[in-house]
């Protein structure tokens, strides 16, 4: 994990501790069926073109369900945008840690065999 993501991981860990909720997956009708009815087709397909911090923040707020949590939105926006800056710049410099981290993550070499790839 690169330094930016290490910092972000630390921040997200603290956020997760503070906002822990064991019932977050429990919003299911338990009467006769566990199916969730679906009406919306809005996200079946969309253009994906995040570039600026404002676009990233808007995307997260609109589609990632974090519109009510400004702290989280800001944290993620900064982390994601820094990752982009570093990854884009450093991809050109072959031997940086960031390039290696990206390649590693891409190759999943750090994921043990018993972990499901999410």
């Amino acid at each position, binding site marked *: 994990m690169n330094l930016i993501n290490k910092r972000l991981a630390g921040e997200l860990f603290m956020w997760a501790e503070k906002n822990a909720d064991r019932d977050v997956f429990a919003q299911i009708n338990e009467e006769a069926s*566990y*199916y969730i009815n*679906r009406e919306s087709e809005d996200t079946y397909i969309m253009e994906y073109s995040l570039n600026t911090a404002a676009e990233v923040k808007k995307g997260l707020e609109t589609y990632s369900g974090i519109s009510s949590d400004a702290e989280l939105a800001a944290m993620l926006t900064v982390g994601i945008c820094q990752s982009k800056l570093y990854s884009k710049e450093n991809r050109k410099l072959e031997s940086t840690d960031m390039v290696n981290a990206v390649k590693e993550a891409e190759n999943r070499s750090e994921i043990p065999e*018993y972990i499901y790839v999410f």
Partner: protein
Amino acid sequence: MYILGVSALYHDAAAALIKDGEIVAAAQEERFTRKKHDPSIPRQAIRYCLEEGGINPDDLKAVVYYDNPLLTMGRFIQNLRYAGRDSRDLLNFSLDSLICNKMWVHHLLAECIGRLGMENKLFVTEHHISHAASAFFPSPYQNAVIITIDGVGEYATTTIGYGEDNHIKILQQIDYPHSLGLLYSAFTYFCGFKVNSGDYKLMGLAPYGKPVYVQLIKDKLIDIKDDGSYRLNLEYFDFQYGRAMTNDKFAQLFGGDRRQPESVITKREMDMAASVQKIVEEIFVLMARHAKEFTGKQTDNLVLAGGVALNCVANGVLEREKVFKNIWVQPAAGDAGGAVGAALFYYYQYCGNQRVSDGICDRQKASYLGPRYENEQIKGYLEEKGYSYHVYDVEEIFYQKISELLEQQKVIGLFEGRMEYGPRALGNRSIIGDPRSPEMQSKLNLKIKYRESFRPFAPSVLEENAEEYFELDHKSPYMLFCANVQKALRKEFNLEDEIALSQENLLSVVNRVRSYIPAVTHVDYSARIQTVNGNDNPVFYGIIKAFRERTGCSAVINTSFNVRGEPIVCTPEDAYLCFMRTEMDVLVLGKCILYKEEQTPMKDDKDWRKQYELD
């Protein structure tokens, strides 16, 4: 209109090119990089697709990625809240890939391709929309109920939908963490096989066991409703923390720790495999019944995709229940197939192009969608390398020769035509043998494939003769349905007695003759069947037909052309290396036949097995 579909960054990366709704090319990245289940951006598969189409990136109307990173981020955040102070592993194992790669997938793809089509834009489809589209749009049907089941997409793990003409709609879904795919993966993991790649081993192990844990699983692990919807009891799992699939409580339920990989397989693992398999089959049938009723559509057609749809045993059960008259399963039902689905969704639903189907023939082109090598290229390769070979230009003589070799009990590597798209080898990158041989299954497992002895092999049978051999009343060109060997062909075999006598050595069980075609008859008399016809694959059909004329047998063993842990061979070079490194007797490269005894042994190749991590 050319559209490029891409799946990447999760399991099996792949690329697919469609032209005016027709699939021109599709391939998994692993075949080129020689890294099994390679999830990285599919650079080589994309390059191949563009070359096959004879186009440049500028000619693409659009590039479509099969998953929505923003929705995935939403699920990740939900998961963090659930895990709370236990979220460290989740962050350690998932954050990098999500932040650096998935969120910037448009940049990664732009870097890879050069330009994201004419408008330089990336489109993303929902993961299960990609699966649903891969199931419906290439299917033979004008309308169909659609069911997709996998580990997890963004939120959804299971969906029920309906497709008609050029439109699909998801009507119901089950969301993460409640997942049939993850339940199956949990058992795969606990039984000592690899998550993401060992699920089919668990399916192969199931017939050795008894489903004694079904009630326990229902009581403790999963609540199944009458409509096939389900919910997991998370107290027994650890995947939601980004750790192992199961926890100590799960282990206690099944009497101790998980089986260590490569250790002896005991009755417990066999029974666990049988039990979870029964659960999957039960859910398949209940869900199909519900889906037919819920959609309210008068259709006899069902289409399936998602990794769980590769469970050909459950597909066979579903077929025999006759909930739907017709079932079509996307041959690349796992993540690789999402590339085709994403591209087709853009073409049909987003662009509104007309779709026509005849109710009989699918648009998958028998899944022969990968690279091909012409005979001149093959001969050029063999000449350059100085390998000894014989050319058989006359078709009939060529088929006769191969059938003669099969009858002589030779194991043959068959490399012909376009590479298959999806996990199954369908005669173009296959190892074939005589299914009548009692020793062939263990020989193939231990001396050719170097894999576990319990695993069965599949038969490829002439379509017109399939019912003589199997209790199968429909075509199965993609090896996605299991059916039993006909009773008249079976031999007496008591599995329970055999297992008791085997002292946990499954090889002795496998070696017992169970039918006229023992090498492709599993211990429960089942077989994973590929029916072969002359239109889809004239060469493979010609070989099997010649074998029938010579021996009276209309089937051959068909297993993928690779060794354990190796992706299926892609090039003549891959095929030659695999041929030389194993005890395979003969290699057929196009119209060229190579005999092992005429080849010079390879030097300095003792460590080749280290190239491939065991799967």
